């Protein structure tokens, strides 16, 4: 069965005045229909850029320099903008982090939904309104009809994000990419949205890539997880397995630094050092300057080792070859 999404050796570089920033460097993964994939990493790891690359939303001075992105067999890299645009919002959709800045402050919700629908088909105002009410109700927004003529600033943060999610769902896309959608919200709202999104995508059969720096959130959502560091995927596999027996020292470091893992009264463990600048990456494994298990061989870039459903990019995996 062909996967819904096949990404092979994707590389997105930014050609700036201060050098080439390798935001995404050799990223490969697949995604099946209806699957929820988690993409975890710190700021600057390239996770958001990966998401943007999938939609072709990379602005100059950046561009996709090599690799392939196949959606249901159709190659997206190198596709002319006109065709990409017809795919965006219809087969692929994205939800961003801060709904206050993603929704246009001077247009009503009805107008914004209408624009999103009209991007792909002609509709009468009445039909557009009906669809808007339908999709807003589906995301759990009460009193949708009355709300349609309000402006974004009249909503709470959680409701705004629901509107953004509703817009993403408008045309029943095959894949939604959610870039830190709950980071800007209260923790209680966060939990609500997580649950709702999970059931929504299950009901509609939409695949979901959930990008976050929060390992706890991702582990609640995703069945499979990808860990990114300095533009590369350093570990991948089923969520439960990866969290139970992480292979990559970075994943291990992330897990150990979770407050829930620390015993009360004990100091929180941290990963020593700072993430590298993406313009001047260290040679070989990008993590080795901070890695407790690093040695001379780490100066050469490690290849991806695959074992069953899991994969890792490390010379010294924590659990050897066992998965």
């Amino acid at each position, binding site marked *: 069965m062909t996967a819904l999404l096949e990404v092979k050796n994707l590389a997105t570089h930014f050609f700036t005045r201060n050098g080439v920033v390798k935001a995404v460097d050799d990223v490969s993964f697949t995604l099946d229909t209806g699957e929820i994939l988690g993409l975890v990493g710190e700021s600057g790891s390239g996770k958001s850029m990966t998401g943007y690359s999938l*939609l072709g*939303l990379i602005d100059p001075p950046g561009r996709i320099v090599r690799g392939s992105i196949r959606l249901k067999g159709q190659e997206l890299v190198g596709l002319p903008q006109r065709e990409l*645009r*017809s*795919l*965006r*919002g*219809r087969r692929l*959709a*994205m939800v*961003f982090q*801060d709904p206050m*800045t*993603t*929704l*246009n*402050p*001077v*247009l009503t919700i009805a*107008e914004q939904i209408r*624009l*999103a629908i*009209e*991007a*792909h088909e002609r509709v009468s105002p009445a039909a557009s309104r009906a669809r808007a009410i339908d999709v807003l109700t589906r995301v759990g927004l009460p009193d949708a009809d009355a709300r349609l003529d309000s*402006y974004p*600033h*009249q909503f709470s943060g959680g409701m705004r994000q629901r509107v*953004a999610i509703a*817009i*993403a769902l*408008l045309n029943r896309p095959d894949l939604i990419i959610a870039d830190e959608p709950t980071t800007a919200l209260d923790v209680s709202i966060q939990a609500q949205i997580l649950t709702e999104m999970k059931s929504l995508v299950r009901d509609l059969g939409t695949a979901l890539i959930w990008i976050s720096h929060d390992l706890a959130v991702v582990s609640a959502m995703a069945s499979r997880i990808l860990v990114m560091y300095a533009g590369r995927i350093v570990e991948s596999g089923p969520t439960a397995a990866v969290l139970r027996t992480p292979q990559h020292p970075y994943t291990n470091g992330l897990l150990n630094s979770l407050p829930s893992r620390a015993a009360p009264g004990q100091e929180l463990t941290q990963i020593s050092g700072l993430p590298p600048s993406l313009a001047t990456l260290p040679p070989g494994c990008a993590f080795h300057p901070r890695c407790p298990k690093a040695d001379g061989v780490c100066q050469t870039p490690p290849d991806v080792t695959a074992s069953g459903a899991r994969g890792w990019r490390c010379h010294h995996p924590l659990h050897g070859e066992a998965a």
Partner: protein
Amino acid sequence: MLGFLIQRLIQAAVVMMLISALVFIGVFAVGNPIDVLISPDVTQQIRLDTIAAYGFDKPLWEQYLNFLDRLVHGNFGRSFVFNMPVLQLILSRLPATLELTVAAVVGAMVIGIPLGMYAGYRPDSPVTKTIMGLSILGFSVPTFWIGLVLIMTFAVHLGVLPAGGRGDTVAVLGVEWSFLTLNGLSHLFLPALNLSLFKLAMMIRLARAGTREIMLTDTIKFARATGQSEWTILRRHVLRQIAIPIVTVLGLEFGSTLAFAVVTETIFSWPGVGKLIIDSIQSLDRPVMVAYLMLVAFLFIVINFLVDIAYAALDPRLRTRRA
């Protein structure tokens, strides 16, 4: 919304009172008020009669009340030079100036906003660089100089457009307008162009700055992610958002344009209020000067008031906050 309006109205009234007081002090208390009302070459008897009639021998505060009373009744005295009531004189010349100013402002908007948006959308294209270079000229070069160059080029060298004066007029609603005749338009073109250039440069710069800033926001990214075309984005998202600062500036600059009309009218011998004031200054026609000041101040207050309303109408965030 109503409270907002009333609040603004009261403010406007207070300012008018203040200005009337200032003008009163400047003209009647500091200067010799008689010189403002009577031509220097009248008989002594007429002088004495006028002093009694206007109550210049009365205490100052009483004179001020008389002054206000006269203002409210539109009595600004009679022009020395034209020997007709000043208000009538000014009102007869006002349509010409309004015609010129409106043409200039509309021209500046219609040409300037699209050019500026293009410059903001494609900041590195050679066309943009040309536009920006020309805008610096429009900004820096004094209006009177451009007027001279325009006359030189079009009227003297090429001989296609007249060098001055107003063309044939058609009466609409009891007022003479010249833009409704072809001859009138040919006379209107150069002065309107001259007057508009400064505003044009300003519009271009404003539209460019606004467009550039908005294109980098998440709103645009989100709109792109839904598959909306660049054209839709520029028209429905960018234009709508830059409209707010542009309208504000436009309103305020309308008043300034009206003021600059003084220069343009002088160069092109356009029979408007601006030329009137210059002639009055040179011929020491004081009643006209005083009346001009008051009327201009009044006009400014009205314009500011209208801009405030327009601002609230365009930016929905302001409406709910004030109410």
